[in-house]
């Protein structure tokens, strides 16, 4: 299993595991709620709710 670190889920306040190699700006799915969370800092990893999908997103 890949290395993980813990971070606080911004929605539930629970400690969750996230991959250790996350990047600022990356999106992860909360294992608690399934919500998309954005990595806003690393070392330590801080998360916030990711922005909602916008109509002009894509390729």
């Amino acid at each position: 299993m890949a290395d993980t670190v813990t971070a606080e889920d911004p929605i539930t306040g629970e400690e969750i595991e996230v991959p250790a190699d996350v990047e600022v700006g990356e999106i992860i799915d909360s294992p608690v709620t399934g919500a998309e969370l954005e990595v806003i800092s690393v070392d330590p990893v801080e998360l916030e709710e990711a922005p909602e999908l916008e109509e002009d997103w894509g390729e």
Partner: protein
Amino acid sequence: MNVGICYSRIRRDEKLLLSELRDRGHEIEKIDVRKQTFSLSEPPEAFADVDVLVDRCLATSRSLYTTRFAEAYGIPIVNSAETAAICANKVRNSLALERAGVPTPATDVAFTKESAMDIVERFGYPCVLKPVIGSWGRLMAKLDSESAAEAIFEHKETLGHYEHKVFYIQEFVDKPGRDIRVVALDGEPVGAMVRKSDHWLTNAAKGAETEEFELDDEARELVAEASAAVGGGLLGVDLMETGEPQGSQSSGQDARESGYTVHEVNHNVEFKALNEAADVDVPAAVVDWLEDTVAGVES
């Protein structure tokens, strides 16, 4: 080299690119465009030391303005603002392909639902209504009947943003349950895959299965021409197989016989699916190309 990655979300694609750049020892400036301000004359501080900017903005609107500002400051950016502007808008995309003589599905545009119905009646059912700006197969409608067409046009006219009142209607291409995505660098294919689905939409984002595809000479030629038509760069060229040479698939005067039709060129191409489906290293090819691009700028 110092590469500025303009982003608002780090997808798997950007992560692959970042990893390749780091492995080769390049400096990276990760530039979250949401945190930048753009003056008319002075670039943001984050742009100061970069040799090249790579536009990886997930939001088309941000991509369009970021590329414009970068060029105004004289900072090299891939893809170019013009390529982004053409690819971001399906009308401009289709016009560019048509002008370049690239086979592309017959497409007409109207501004009212009455005129849109005239197009649909001319094309016959089914035909396809696409949003002028949009991606991942969203808001695409296959118009199977007059009543469905009328209802969709009315909804778009009543509920939509003004861009939804531009009705972009395309003939339905009866493709063989798959389309082809080619990732290309200035018209040279890096790799290709088919996207297969039982659904009429075969976008990877819609869950289509992917599989490596071997391009023939004709497809390679069309990719090069489609790339040139929109100004080149790191692009995703989408083709459908028409089953037989069908010059009539193109709406132009100079329609030529082709077994393919090019329906779209994407300027902010996602390549993770191709990287997994095909025996190619897309990020390595992209970084090779960036190194050449920067060397070209500096010489």
